[in-house]
């Protein structure tokens, strides 16, 4: 073995190869370091996400985008605008009028929380905020119905206007229920689907009732 001791690598032969660090996902710091971007970009990104979800509600196809990237901005905007539009209802005394702002707010948010808890307790696999997000966004058709009702009531308050309002509210109620069911029903165990869908139906029914019975001063 003495001869092996003389073996040496000549310095002329370069040693080369590649040492690569496997790049999987981007490192978190790189993606979310949005501190340096202009504020307009930040806001526009969120606005675009909200807008995309509104479009998803209008054409309810089963897409996981709505479920995965949940946000509660849309539901908040919808709830506040619906509650504001329900103000100004007629009342001889305070007690007999329509729902106050706080009542609408509480009904929508508390109702959504209860329905979410119900579906989770029945064994659903959807997360808490995803479900809140879907239920909140699906209030959008009813907000549109409220807008239409107020416009119709500006024109007149007779029987014809009532029938028009009735048709619009019923149609939007059906749309809301179908949209939210399309998103939520798949995450339930199959023999309990009806148990989960019924509270959603009740929730949108109550909101529709509030919209339909709105009478201006």
């Amino acid at each position, binding site marked *: 073995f003495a001869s092996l001791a003389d073996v040496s690598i000549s310095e002329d032969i370069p040693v080369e190869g590649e040492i690569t660090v496997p790049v999987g996902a981007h490192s978190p710091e790189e993606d979310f370091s949005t501190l340096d971007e202009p504020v307009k970009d930040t806001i526009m990104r969120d606005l675009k996400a909200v807008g995309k979800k509104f479009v998803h509600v209008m054409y309810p196809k089963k897409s996981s985008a709505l479920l995965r990237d949940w946000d509660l901005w849309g539901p908040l905007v919808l709830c506040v605008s619906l509650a504001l539009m329900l103000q100004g*209802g*007629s*009342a*001889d005394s305070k*007690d*007999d*009028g*329509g*729902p106050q702002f706080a*009542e609408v707010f509480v009904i929508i948010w508390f109702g959504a929380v209860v329905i979410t808890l*119900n579906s*989770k*307790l*029945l*064994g659903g696999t959807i997360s808490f905020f995803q479900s809140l997000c879907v239920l909140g966004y699906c209030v959008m058709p009813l907000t549109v119905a409220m807008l239409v009702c107020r416009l119709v009531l500006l024109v007149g308050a007779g029987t014809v206007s009532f029938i028009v309002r009735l048709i619009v509210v019923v149609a939007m109620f059906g749309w809301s229920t179908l949209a939210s069911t399309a998103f939520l029903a798949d995450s339930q165990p199959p*023999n*309990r*689907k*009806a*148990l989960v869908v*019924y*509270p959603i139906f*009740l929730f949108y*029914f*109550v909101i529709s*009732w*509030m919209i339909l*019975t*709105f*009478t201006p001063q």
Partner: protein
Amino acid sequence: MAAADELKFQEFDDAANLLAANPDATTISIDEPVEIPKKQHSRLQESRREEDDELLGTDDSDKTELLAGQKKSAPFWTFEYYQTFFDVDTYQVLDRIKGSVFPVPGKNFVRLYIRSNPDLYGPFWICATLVFTIAVSGNLSNFFIHLGKPTYHYVPEFRKVSIAATAIYAYAWLVPLALWGFLMWRNSKVMNIVSYSFLEIVCVYGYSLFIYIPTAILWIIPQKVVRWVLMVFSLGLSGTVLVMTFWPAVRDDNRRIALATVVTIVLLHALMSVGCLAYFFDAPELDFPAPIIPVHNSTTVVTKS
């Protein structure tokens, strides 16, 4: 000698032959727990025990106790604990609703349908539906009653929803609490009383309220007779379910206390339904044309009823 004979071992015949020779002999079968033979027991007591077993579930109550213990073993601060109260399928909920609307005479709702799997889904959502049904129907019925009057201005009466919610949820949850406490107290005094668990009582009360949902919708019809007929009908059905559930449980107690308990249950139920009818639904008015009464001097007096 007789003594030697008696000490000698005697072969015994087959049990059937012996019994045929002496039909009234006391028999004991070893594979079951020792029971007094039915032949020597009075028929009334025997049928009563069988009925008890059927109505109260005491024949397999040990087994169900064990199963119940195995199911709800999660500690109460975890989510899984509460999931055990929602362990029902759609067909089970529908069956329970059906059982509360069509009470089968002699069958106990708890034994037949709940079977130690009480759920909170039915009571909670039936109460929620009932709250909104009563509020909406009351509003609609008032609208139709006052429709023609020129001075009438429609109001949504939204305040009544919170009142309805308070009343119905208080009835459906506090009365079972009181009843459960009462049954536990009697259970400690009198041995034979079977006390249901709190959730089973809540279940019975919740499902028994289901009949009021279609009743409230039909109460929109502004006829007094129709409304009272509906009320008696629904009170009869749901009251029967309640009575058949709780009578076997208190029957072994002091006669007076048992009767008082059952009467109180029915009275509270009636109070709730009458109260709902009176508060949320205005009385349908009958419009009499104003009669004109001629008085001695030629002025006429118009009276309005």
